[in-house]
């Protein structure tokens, strides 16, 4: 018996040690010491030269951010590592303090905001560009932009209350189109996404029924038929399924020549999705100072109704002077010079009003109470 104990004692101890180790590792990430804790002040007198910044978050602006950070590296020699892990991941990372900035297509919820502010103080939503969500369809013989819908009818379609293309309400909007007697197959994103957030935000604004039954989030309880992964998945489904309707990012619809719906905006005008009608959504409207606004169903009469900003999430109080300075310079560049890279990549540039608000936000970023950049 003693021999047996001796034989197994060492490995057994090892197992126990490893299991406890694993458990210890699994405790919440906020408890681990973070590299950018505001308490630790590193040499306030001489800011060392910083060579890299880390960011993580939204996938929607990833092509633009990749281009930006590449251009910015050529200009300044500062390398910015961006991981497109999704908006939810970006919010988690910035809350845990493992990155210098987060990125999100959606506004942080009050709970998320409270959690982040409890850790590192106030956090900013700085807009970088805006995008639109195009509603695409598969109806033979009906060209892109010909089909007209209103937000209310779109909500009814996605609620499965309108189930056939020859429904009288759709016919009334499209007297010149020969709509087929064909069931509508509703396609949505199966993965959580900022695109879904903007789309469901719009539907919630347009339909009380949608708001109470389904609501607004990156992933919702869909009444509709088919879920497909990613823009490519939704587009693939809609392309091959006659009578289907779906939604994808405008950039994706443009690059793949998908036929899109012309939507009625809040002024009653029917608007096709485009970069200019997306930028218009943030023009001539009152924007809040914190820029936490969903610009869906904009009051601008020329605006396309399903648009949204995408934001970088940055703490007001920077714990490292050199890093803070590099970050602020990069942000300033992005909302000014960086905007010229938006249109070629099918993103909509910020409106002048949005740039003004973003400037004020960037100027408010501080290191030990001192601003990091002068206007």
């Amino acid at each position, binding site marked *: 018996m003693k021999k047996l104990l001796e*034989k*197994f004692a*060492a*490995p*057994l101890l*090892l*197992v126990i040690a*490893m*299991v406890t180790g*694993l*458990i210890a590792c*699994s405790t919440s990430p906020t408890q681990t010491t973070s590299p950018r804790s505001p308490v630790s002040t590193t040499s306030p007198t001489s800011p060392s030269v910083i060579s890299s910044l880390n960011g993580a978050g939204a996938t929607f602006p990833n092509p633009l951010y990749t281009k930006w950070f590449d251009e910015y590296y050529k200009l300044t020699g500062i390398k910015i590592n961006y991981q497109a*892990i*999704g*908006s*939810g*991941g970006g*919010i*988690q990372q910035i809350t845990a303090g493992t990155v210098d900035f987060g990125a999100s297509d959606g506004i942080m*919820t009050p*709970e*998320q905001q409270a959690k982040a502010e409890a850790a590192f103080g106030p956090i900013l939503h700085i807009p970088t560009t805006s995008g639109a969500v195009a509603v695409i369809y598969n109806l033979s013989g009906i060209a892109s932009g010909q089909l007209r819908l209103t937000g209310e009818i779109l909500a009814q379609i996605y609620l499965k209350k309108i189930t056939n293309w020859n429904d009288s309400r759709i016919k009334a909007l499209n007297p010149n189109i020969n709509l087929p007697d064909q*069931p509508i*197959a509703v396609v949505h994103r*199966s*993965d*959580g*996404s900022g695109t879904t957030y903007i789309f469901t935000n719009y539907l919630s604004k347009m339909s009380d029924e949608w708001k109470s039954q*389904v*609501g*607004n*989030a*990156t*992933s*919702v*309880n*869909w009444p*509709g*038929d*088919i*879920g*497909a*992964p990613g823009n490519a*998945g939704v587009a*693939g*489904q809609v392309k*091959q*399924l006659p009578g289907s309707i779906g939604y994808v990012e405008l950039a994706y619809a443009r690059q793949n020549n998908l036929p899109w719906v012309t939507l009625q905006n809040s002024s009653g005008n029917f608007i096709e999705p485009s970069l200019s009608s997306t930028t218009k959504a943030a023009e001539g409207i009152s924007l809040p100072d914190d820029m936490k606004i969903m610009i869906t169903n904009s009051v601008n009469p020329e605006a396309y109704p399903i648009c949204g900003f995408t934001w970088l999430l940055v703490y007001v109080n920077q714990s490292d002077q050199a890093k803070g300075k590099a970050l602020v310079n990069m942000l300033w560049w992005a909302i000014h010079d960086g905007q010229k890279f938006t249109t070629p990549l099918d993103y909509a540039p910020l409106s002048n009003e949005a740039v003004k608000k973003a400037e004020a936000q960037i100027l408010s970023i501080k290191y030990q109470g001192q601003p990091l950049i002068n206007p």
Partner: protein
Amino acid sequence: MEWRDPLHILRSEKEVHILRSDKTCKPTDLRENQIRSANTMSFSGRLGDRIFPRLTLIFAALLLAILAGIIVILFLDAMPAIKQFGLSFFGSTDWDPVNERFGALPAIYGTLLSSFIGLIIAIPLSIGAAIFLSELAPAWIRSPASFLVELLAAIPSVIIGLWGLFILVPFIRNPVESWLGDKLGFLSLFQGPPFGVGFLAAGIILAIMITPIITAVSRDAMKAVPDTQREAMYALGATRWEMISRAVLPYCRSGLIGAVILGLARALGETMAVTMVIGNSYKLTASLFSPGTTIASKIASEFSEASGEIFIGSLVELALVLFVITLLVNIVARLLVWRLTTVKVEGI
């Protein structure tokens, strides 16, 4: 120390052979020889003997530790959801991140149903192919065909998923589903609009993915049947069909069950290919045409953007459920194999 066969400690079979075949080597010489060689390697040999078993024991323990770690962490992370929903998690059909109400039933149902469809299609196909490859095929077909079957098993699932979405799904929509809907539409199994994507497409994709694995393992099991069994059957005047059905299949049935269970385990956990063709709708319907979801595809789709303790906890609890399902499948398989091997093989 107990007595060991003297030849045992010699370095290699070859050496034994030389010693034995050496005509001048008398038994006494042999003994002297082996004592000498045993002395020269005794120290390192004993040390190795001491270390090696412990080393392997540590490796084995490591595997168990990883298993324990997975279970513990799944439990801890799922706790918020377990506390919130309790047993109702398994009966609820909700998946509503906005109001934080979650249930697992449609995902469990979808996982089991799609795997079941996959097995129904794959079992006859792969057992048939295995019989052909091991018993009937001419020699020049056997090895290339077996190689190709194994190659099929190595295709990454995302590629099969893409093929499924662009080739299989349109084919299932029309003609398969429209035909089934026309002729058998009175059954609730074949009702609803033919979207193409759905349980049927997922089941067929799974069948394609698990057929190679079941075929390869069953073929190996059949090849392991001793030829004496076959010869005995032939000697009794059996036909080839009788030989296969009465001698080969009963003899290797535990191997066949093992093959099917391996396939089932892959089907239950398959993620990418299924996500692409199942339609990802969180519904509980009897129709095979209906879009549905599986546990693995639900987790993969929503985990990256999930926020909030309850939402993430629910996804982790789904993972725990999948873990338990696979565990149960394996236990049942073990019991089945055990029962079958203890039951006497039927006489002729």
